[in-house]
């Protein structure tokens, strides 16, 4: 027995050399911000979903109203909202309604104040399956205070991530994630550049390529079912909920199957009235209002907040209900046809 234990011990110790280095690396660099949670030394995209929920659990009364959705909703600045409410941007990359339900339940279970929600939806909502996210470390959910540490401490150092971290250390324009404030990433560099060089900015080739991942497959029925569950949860918990459909950049908008898009709009209207900023309009067809073909600029996000929350009059966006949805869809179809014909010319 002694010989056996000695051999096993030696074998296990030798086997631990690799993991020990990994633990050291992750404690030093904390690529997803989960282990140390220090945003001042965070150079890559942290696991925002985890960190935000954790932050709110630690500060249950700091906020009472939340913006949720994908990273596009991250362009809506809570500081620009002047109506009553302590707003926080709880959005994260590819955030989905089914995940919002899980996070809301976690927050409610931890006595976090929730009075109002603004849910931003778009093609990601009805094209991305939440199962895809279960394997993606930047999108892991918050379960409890100890659950993720084991996983994140032993995370294999990623070569590309390592390079990104090294490159960002001396980058003066590196983004800063204001997790503990507004919940938004802070980077004004691109906005400044766009304002100073508008012609060059809009002509950039990146605006020709739609933002589309290989795992995007339509799931409209499932998305609507999840949204219905979200509404049900909010009604039960006495939370006021409002939906907006994001203005998708024309390239990304046209990449999707428009039948799915129309069916989503119609289904959503049957569940709740909402604000629609999507389609081919003055904003979505102008590259100037976008960072790339996925994210609209913060100035657009703020404009949307003014319309939706503060009731400002604007030509951008329209209120959709189950009574006007058919009319709106017909109009949208015409706009698409007209746009495609213009493009041909």
């Amino acid at each position, binding site marked *: *027995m002694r*010989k*056996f234990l000695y051999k096993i011990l030696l*074998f296990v110790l030798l*086997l631990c050399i690799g993991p020990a280095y990994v633990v050291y690396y992750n404690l030093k660099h904390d690529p997803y911000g989960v282990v140390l949670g220090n945003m001042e030394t965070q150079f890559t995209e942290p696991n925002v979903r985890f960190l935000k929920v954790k932050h709110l659990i630690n500060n249950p009364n700091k906020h009472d109203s939340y913006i949720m959705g994908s990273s596009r909703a991250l362009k809506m600045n809570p500081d620009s909202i002047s109506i009553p409410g302590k707003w926080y941007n709880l959005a994260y990359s590819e955030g989905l309604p089914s995940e919002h339900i899980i996070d809301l339940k976690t927050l409610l279970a931890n006595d976090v104040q929730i009075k109002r929600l603004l849910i931003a939806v778009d093609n990601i909502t009805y094209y991305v399956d939440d199962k895809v996210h279960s*394997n993606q470390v930047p999108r892991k959910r918050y379960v409890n205070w100890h659950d993720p540490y084991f996983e994140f401490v*032993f995370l*294999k150092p990623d070569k590309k991530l390592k390079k990104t971290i090294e490159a960002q250390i001396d980058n003066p324009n590196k983004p800063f994630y204001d997790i503990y404030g507004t919940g938004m990433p802070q980077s004004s560099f691109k906005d400044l550049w766009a304002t100073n060089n508008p012609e060059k900015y809009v002509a950039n080739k990146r605006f020709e390529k739609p933002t589309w991942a290989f*795992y995007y497959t339509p799931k409209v029925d499932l998305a609507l079912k999840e949204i219905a569950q979200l509404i049900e949860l909010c009604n039960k918990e006495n939370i006021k909920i409002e939906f907006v459909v994001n203005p998708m950049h024309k390239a990304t908008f046209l990449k999707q199957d428009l039948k799915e898009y129309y069916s989503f709009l119609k289904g959503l209207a049957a569940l709740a009235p909402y604000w629609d900023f999507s389609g081919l309009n003055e904003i979505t067809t102008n590259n100037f209002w976008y960072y790339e073909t996925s994210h609209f600029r913060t100035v657009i996000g703020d404009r949307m907040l003014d319309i939706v929350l503060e009731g400002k009059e604007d030509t951008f966006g329209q209120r959709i209900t189950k009574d006007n949805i058919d009319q709106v869809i017909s109009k949208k179809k015409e706009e698409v046809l007209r746009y495609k014909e213009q493009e041909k010319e």
Partner: protein
Amino acid sequence: MLFNSVAFALFLPTVFLLYWFVFKKNLKLQNFFIVVISYFFYGWWDWKFLGLILFSTVVDYFIGRGLLHFKELKFRKLLLWTSICVNIGLLGYFKYFNFFIDNFIEAFSFLGLKLHVSTLQIILPVGISFYTFQTLSYTIDVYREKLKPTKDFIAFAAFVSFFPQLVAGPIERATNLLPQFFVKRKFNYANAMDGLRQILWGFFKKVVIADTCAEYANTIFASTDTASGSTLLIGALFFTFQIYGDFSGYSDIAIGTSRLFGFKLNQNFATPYFSRDVAEFWRRWHISLSTWFRDYVYIPLGGSRGGSFNKIRNTFIIFIVSGFWHGANWTFIVWGALNALYIMPLIISNKNRNYLNVVAEGKNLPTLRELGAMLLTFGLTVIAWIFFRSENINQAFTILKKIFSTDLFTAVAFRSSNPVGWTVLYILIMLGIDWKGRSDEHALASFGMNWNKYLRYVFYYSIALFVLYTWWNTDEQQFIYFQF
């Protein structure tokens, strides 16, 4: 608790040390310790279902005692059928209730009648198909007087719940495993080391082969409507290796772990993909289930006696029941029936026992004829796995239609996060090592034994490191057979 989890990595050394250092002196105490850790192991998944195992254990223990007490045939039969009804009833309720309800509703709607019967939200208890069959084997063997019923309830409870094989087999016969609980176990260095080698190989098959193949198979099967025939064939091949790596990997870990505790379980896989015909395949794949059906269903039905009709009927029955055992879905039933069709020509022509030895015994390479036979058998198996993996019959037929069309000659296209080339290399390494060890109980039993000691340990260390590395890159994946 999953074998490929951190929890198990902490559980195993802890219980090993307690077993050999604290509970070694008293056999009853050691058996009791096995019951406690086995229930803990199972309860880690969901403690609420521990009651089911206990219920099954108590019922079969007392039925066993009753069979000793009653000599009259009608009472003995009554006891036997009570055990069968309780165990199959549990299995039927948890596993097949909704399937039958759904199919009744569909059958009536086909006749133009609308039935309003609701299905239930039933959670399938992990491993129920395995431990119910194991306890049933005890009652049947006691009824047949092949085994004396035990008085020792703790030993019997340990036999039913023995943690290494509780949730996914091998399904041990009471005649093999139960007597081992009555003998004082001694630590055997050579056995323990061999057990560790088997565990290591099991982890390689599960983590490196099954979990990486799973990613491709899942992606491809999920895109059946859009994927080309060639891509779907690749998906079916990946699933073929996934299910082998997954299930035989589990069996290797279970058998190896048992050896660490001084127990010897039966071999469950004997390099089945090197079979030369389907009959040989079924002697080498999930051996504990095949022999269970042979001994407790096929032979009581008359086996191969009584003419061709009986032979064909009995073969179809056991293959269809075996398919149904795997899951409450028509896909499994068709999978079973298809295998029965494959084996039928061999049964009718009495050629089903042509290959009782290992292929190319004593040689390094097979002959061309043997290679051809192996490839043909493998091909038939791949087709059958398509039914096994598909969500429904329609999906399986869509895949087959695409594979057996000109679509097969279009380019393979699917996206994945892992490079496919490496996975193919791992599969080839597995097949190579399996080939070398095809005559042994497991692939690493004698592989590298004639090498220099240090070289051999470098080899083991490399496998362990590789398993660890791959495990890091993938989430903990459940073993497929947990769901059966």
